[in-house]
């Protein structure tokens, strides 16, 4: 099983504004870092350009980041133990403070590529019901055996 993660953030200003300039400048090196990170499997891209962000129908101010990793540890090491951390430290310059869970994880079969609609549904489940085997977080983590033993729960409505 591989670990899928989605995180969303509401932009303070449009991506082409001065406020977001440093964030946009960090996209290429940080995406390159993620793609070369141990345990990285896949990420949804908005296009072939290094600073293209994922296009979607959930609002112009919503930035989404959606990727798949081999394990909790490899995702953790990229998010918190790499040059990604100092960039994330500046998040409040660029994004509104989150008032509800903004990141969700779940286990997927190897080779499976979930749709963004499924990922957003997982986030809704987390927000509505709290963490469980089908939608969880780093702090309230469920390992893959717990998810596999509850196939009904893993088959979240898409």
């Amino acid at each position, binding site marked *: 099983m591989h670990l899928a993660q989605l995180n969303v953030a509401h932009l303070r200003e449009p991506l082409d504004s001065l406020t977001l300039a*440093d964030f946009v400048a960090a996209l290429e*090196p940080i995406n390159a870092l993620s793609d070369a990170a141990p345990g990285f499997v896949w990420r949804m891209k908005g296009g072939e350009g290094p600073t293209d962000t994922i296009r979607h129908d959930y609002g112009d101010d919503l930035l989404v980041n959606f990727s798949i990793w081999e394990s909790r540890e490899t995702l953790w090491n990229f998010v918190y133990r790499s*040059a990604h*951390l*100092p*960039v994330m430290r500046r998040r409040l*310059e660029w994004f509104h403070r989150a008032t509800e869970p903004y990141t969700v994880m779940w286990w997927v079969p190897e080779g499976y590529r979930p749709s963004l609609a499924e990922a957003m549904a997982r986030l809704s489940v987390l927000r509505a019901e709290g963490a469980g085997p089908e939608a969880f977080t780093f702090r309230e983590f469920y390992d893959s055996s717990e998810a596999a033993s509850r196939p009904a729960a893993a088959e979240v409505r898409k």
Partner: protein
Amino acid sequence: MVSDDLESMSALGDPVRRALYRFVSERGRDVGRNEAAEAVGVQRTLAAFHLDKLVEAGLLEAGFRRLTGRTGPGSGRPAKVYRRAREERSVSLPPRDYRTLALVLAETVDLLGGEEKAEEAARRAGKRLAAQAAPEEASGEAGDLAEVLRERGYEPYEEEGRIRLRNCPFHVLAESHPLLVCSMNAALCEGLLAGLGETGVSAALDPRPGECCVAFTRAAATPEAFANPEASQNTGASENPRASKNNED
């Protein structure tokens, strides 16, 4: 829990074992029996006996590894190697539980959105710690940064002109609230520098798996350490985390 930890630590009552534990911990990598025996100045068999006692006590972990670099038939049996156990031990008499309260306070900072205040407080705490570390030098004479970091449990080591930190003294909190705790730790380290009067050194978030999130760079070492333009870009961003916000203001 307390009695288990106390039992583990009683294994360190023997001075040879203490020396072996310290040696293996400070290496920060796998250590073989010969190397440990030589460093501590005892026979290999005696070192092996004590190292295995430390494994039994849960203070060290053992594994097998080829130390020669050769592989395949004829390369010999893998050697037994030791490293510090990851699990932390603490004994407090009378019983104290600062961890639970610290976790509750970290959660409170998150709920209140108080990370900027938390970083300011951490910076002040760093200054105070620097002053305590060098009371007789409080008049402005700089204390020794590496020594202060060692006393604070960071286990500093040199790498390419920078000081890196092998151990995170706030590990449990950094696992539960990484962004808050690493940001506070960076601020605390900046406070230490200010308190020690180390103006030629900067602290920046540069995390690595299994280590502390902060690295120190001396001004003179900057061009070399940042020869890679990408690294320079990332580090530049981290050194002044709120730069663009301040510009807006």
